[in-house]
């Protein structure tokens, strides 16, 4: 009687095939886990590179960021990135472009975008995907600008002489009646050009000297004022006695100065009946603090 117990060859082959399939699935999970780890590490590396470059460009001032693009690779960050390369190469590109906000004032800003690209490889080492990490941020137009000019060295006596008048200034006096002139022989003290309307705070300091052989009387004074472009007097006009106060300073506010180029003029005049008395400019410094003008108070 045929009553064979045990395993036939076919059964063993089937068991082997099933075991092989299970082993293949486990191996796929193990190998797949390895490549998933590498993918995650590559993404982290690309993010690190992108973030460093973005921070680097955001540290630039608004004026130093020129529209355009620049490229590089990991070696620009640090040699440590080069030493840890594993046949995946990372290349970054920075794009800078300029735009303006909506609204009446159209405030400019610069958009900085950093892209890092890298190619992923499959288990056979063939490049299969190009991945991109992209980060973006803006650098806004500065809310406050500070501009300062000063004389580099004391001026020699006689270089800049104050114009003289024997009249005494009074409010409402006509321009042609008095003898105002710029402290630098009519030249502007400084100029500026902002992209948005600004409120200005202007501070100036003058150091003066006089001919000690012909000193001014104790009651002789120097008048100073500030003008924007060829406009009227801004702020207050100072009257300073020459003998007792050889430093003149003034601070004034000018509101809603329009966008575009402007010049600042500091003017003076020496009130004296005596033509032999000379007053000279020894040194000056002017500072303009420009704050973005707000439409609504």
């Amino acid at each position, binding site marked *: 009687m045929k009553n064979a117990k045990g395993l036939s060859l076919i059964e063993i082959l089937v068991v082997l095939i099933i075991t092989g399939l299970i082993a293949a699935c486990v191996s796929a999970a*193990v190998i797949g886990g390895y490549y998933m780890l590498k993918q995650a590490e590559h993404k982290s590396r690309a993010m690190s590179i992108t973030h460093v470059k973005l921070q680097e460009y955001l540290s630039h001032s608004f004026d130093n960021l020129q529209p355009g693009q620049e490229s590089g690779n990991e070696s620009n960050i640090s040699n440590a990135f080069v030493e840890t390369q594993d046949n995946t190469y990372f290349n970054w590109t920075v794009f800078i472009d300029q735009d303006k906000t909506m609204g009446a004032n159209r405030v400019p800003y610069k958009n900085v975008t950093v892209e890092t690209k890298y190619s992923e490889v499959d288990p056979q080492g063939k490049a299969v995907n190009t991945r991109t990490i992209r980060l973006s941020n803006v650098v806004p137009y500065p809310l406050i600008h500070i501009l300062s000019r000063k004389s580099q060295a004391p001026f020699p006596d006689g270089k800049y002489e104050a114009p003289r008048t024997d009249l005494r200034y009074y409010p409402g006096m006509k321009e042609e009646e008095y003898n105002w002139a710029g402290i630098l022989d009519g030249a502007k003290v400084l100029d500026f050009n902002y992209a948005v309307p600004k409120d200005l705070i202007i501070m100036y300091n003058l150091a003066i000297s006089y001919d000690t052989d012909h000193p001014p009387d104790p009651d002789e004074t120097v008048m100073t004022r500030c003008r924007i472009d060829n406009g009227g007097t801004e702020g207050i006009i100072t009257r300073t006695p020459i003998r007792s106060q050889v430093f003149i300073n003034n601070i004034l506010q000018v509101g809603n100065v329009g966008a575009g180029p402007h010049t600042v003029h500091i003017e003076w005049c020496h009130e004296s009946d005596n033509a032999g008395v000379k007053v000279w400019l020894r040194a000056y410094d002017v500072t303009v603090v420009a704050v973005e003008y707000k439409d609504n108070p």
Partner: protein
Amino acid sequence: MRNRGMTLLELLIALALAGVIFLGIFHVSTIAGKQIHVYIERYNAYSQIGYALDDMALRMPSASKIKTPFTQSGALETIHAMRFIGASDPYHVVPYEGDTDYRYRVRNGAGEDGALVLEVMDGSNIEKAEILVEGKFRPRVSFIRHGEQHDAEPDFMTVVIEVFCDKSKAIGLPEKLVKAEGIRFWFVDVVQPQ
């Protein structure tokens, strides 16, 4: 009558096949186990690097004084420790008024554990220290300034942290991990001319 059971030959073949199969399973599980250890170690390393860089990005920008400044503005310069005066509470910064003396460094002196630490200093004494990256990863920190030929601003530098995961070699991964962060200082320049 035929006897039930296996012959010796069948038993030997079955044992051999089973041995091969179990060896394969054992090998796969060993590799999987190693991989898991390596993944955990690398995850820990990345976490610690990330924590260290986040701490630096939090404390350093509001520094009111740099005590280990870069001295060259026109060249690549790298230093391996950074000491500065910063805010005791980095979430409550008063401009230019830091009150705590901080130092980031790797403790690689004789008898030290090789960890990357944040130290709070009191003169030359260390008041307290916090480990950011454990010494077992052999961390290295570099504070890098690329200089003006790269159009770098004087208030910007890059921090690079490298660590080593020794077990990674076992499964064919690179043992060195590296991550970087860009730090822009708000109140001071990191370059201080000599």
